[in-house]
């Protein structure tokens, strides 16, 4: 799409803010509206916008399919791994209370339930971003038969 300078420049201006907003929704989701799923779809729509305007090969350079398809499973692994971690620390599956710690209390490092929610939302966000992007690749990579 080399012939549409306005679309390309506006896209380049907008994408950082879309991705930043996705991170805000992801990591501020404990305080405001949002969470992993919302952040994942917003992040993926930023990637897809880039792919639409600059072509499939450009987005595949930024987000290689071989990495993204591993991320699909990585997110679920982080989520379930949090549960296994809480079991290893002596609690029940996904019982985040055992994640309590006293590292750098002045820096407000997430602890206990907050840390658990942070980790599982991160897992949800990674899986949703990866799945949406891979589905876009699967659709956009096909030619008319």
């Amino acid at each position, binding site marked *: 799409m080399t012939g549409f300078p306005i679309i390309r420049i506006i896209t380049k201006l907008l994408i950082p803010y879309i991705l930043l907003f996705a991170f805000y929704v992801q990591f501020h*989701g404990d305080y405001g509206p*949002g969470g992993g799923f919302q952040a994942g779809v917003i992040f993926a729509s930023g990637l897809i916008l880039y792919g639409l305007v600059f072509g499939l090969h450009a987005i595949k350079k930024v987000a290689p399919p071989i990495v993204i398809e591993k991320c*699909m499973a990585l997110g679920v692994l982080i989520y379930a791994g949090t549960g296994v971690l809480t079991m290893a620390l002596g609690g029940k*599956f996904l019982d985040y209370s055992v994640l309590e710690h006293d590292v750098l209390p002045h820096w407000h490092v997430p602890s206990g339930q907050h840390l658990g929610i942070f980790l599982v939302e991160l897992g949800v966000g990674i899986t949703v971003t990866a799945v949406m992007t891979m589905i*876009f690749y699967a*659709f956009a990579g096909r030619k008319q038969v």
Partner: protein
Amino acid sequence: MNLIVFALLALLAITAVAIAQLRELWAVIMFTGIYSFLSASWMIILDAPDVAFTEAAVGAGISTVLMLSTMALTGKAEDIPRKSSVVPLFVVIVTGATLVYGTLDMPHFGSPDAPVQVYPDPSFVERSEADMHGLPNVVTALLASYRGYDTLGETTVVLTAGIAVLLILRKNEDEQDDTAPLARNKSS
């Protein structure tokens, strides 16, 4: 406020009728995008901004793109139906009437007796802030902590759906032409 509500709902209904009427699939896809944006605005009015994010990003963004790429692979116009549409119309009217009849028993919007206000145990709302180290968002606390198993299941469903789509749609390795990026760029 009421004016906005009525205008939004009227626009939703008009868009839905327009989608049903149109045969040009390009226009239909654009109208479904408009429908999603209107739904997102409606969710904002219902104080559900997180649902509105999702509706705007998935409904208006990603699914519009996916439908456009599907249309590029298939046809651009819907066939004119040859069969009579009396029976489908009858089924739709009966189903719609049943649904409307079902809403008659529902509590009024915002009523304090509504199940949605009563059934998730109010103690969740009262104790979540203390349980969660001062995290004020009860929705996140419910989804990620109290109902963590459900959300794990949902995430797995998303993964499974993604794997299924990839298994059906992905090309074979030898057909992929990522090695020729410049030629691809010119054609797209």
